[in-house]
């Protein structure tokens, strides 16, 4: 399965819904999307990963890159994920301490630091 990406605006947040597999082949598409959003002035991103089937370290690298970009503009990057197999990858790499991870888009959109 390839990667699917769609974006929508909720208040001052931009929700990026990601589906399919994020790996060494597809991660550049996600990177392009995040870079484009930041370049267009969207600094508060919510990445909805509920429809992601597979995530590897290349995908993690892209998310960390996105976080760096939004932070440069005092923005935020929040993740939405309830899937244990995806959450496990964040845990073993220690990235649960880096990303705020929410159980729903509503919760992520409502969250403030």
């Amino acid at each position: 399965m390839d990667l699917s990406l769609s974006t929508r605006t909720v208040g001052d947040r931009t929700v990026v819904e990601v589906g399919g597999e994020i790996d060494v082949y597809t991660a550049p598409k996600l990177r392009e999307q995040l870079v484009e959003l930041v370049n267009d002035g969207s600094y508060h991103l919510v990445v909805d990963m509920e429809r992601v089937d597979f995530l590897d370290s290349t995908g993690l690298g892209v998310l960390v890159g996105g976080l760096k970009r939004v932070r440069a503009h005092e923005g935020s990057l929040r993740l939405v994920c309830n899937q244990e197999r995806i959450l496990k990858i964040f845990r073993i790499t220690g990235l649960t301490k880096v990303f705020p991870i929410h159980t729903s888009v509503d919760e992520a959109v409502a969250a403030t630091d």
Partner: protein
Amino acid sequence: MATVELRFSALPEHVRTARLVAAAVARRAGVDEAVLDEVRLAVGEACSRAVGLHESHDIASPVRVLLIEDEKKFSIEVGDGVPGGTTAAGARGAGEAEGAAESDAEGEDEMGLAVISGLVDDVEVTAGEEGGMIRMSWPTTTAATIP
């Protein structure tokens, strides 16, 4: 001889194929269903790393994956063609020389190894004259043996 041997051109689009094949062979070998996600992820990480190394060192030879079914364990060996330079330190040297884009790749390479070592109990990374190798293994259950 390996149960299944896979060679693929060092291109990112083929890593998914390697994951699918590895998971299929692992399932058949009797690796627990609950662990198959880990097998898929670990072999993907090892292959992504090998593809990155081949690209950054401009190596035309294919990436080699051996899937080996033994009595009590299932092993995967992912070999790259970078002689003696598959350590993170070797990749870092190349990254510094070639600029910022390479530094990103190097970070992902290290994260890939971190994921593998976090996932797999039995893992060994070696560097040889003919290239580097990541060996991983998982226990199998005898229940999967077809009578």
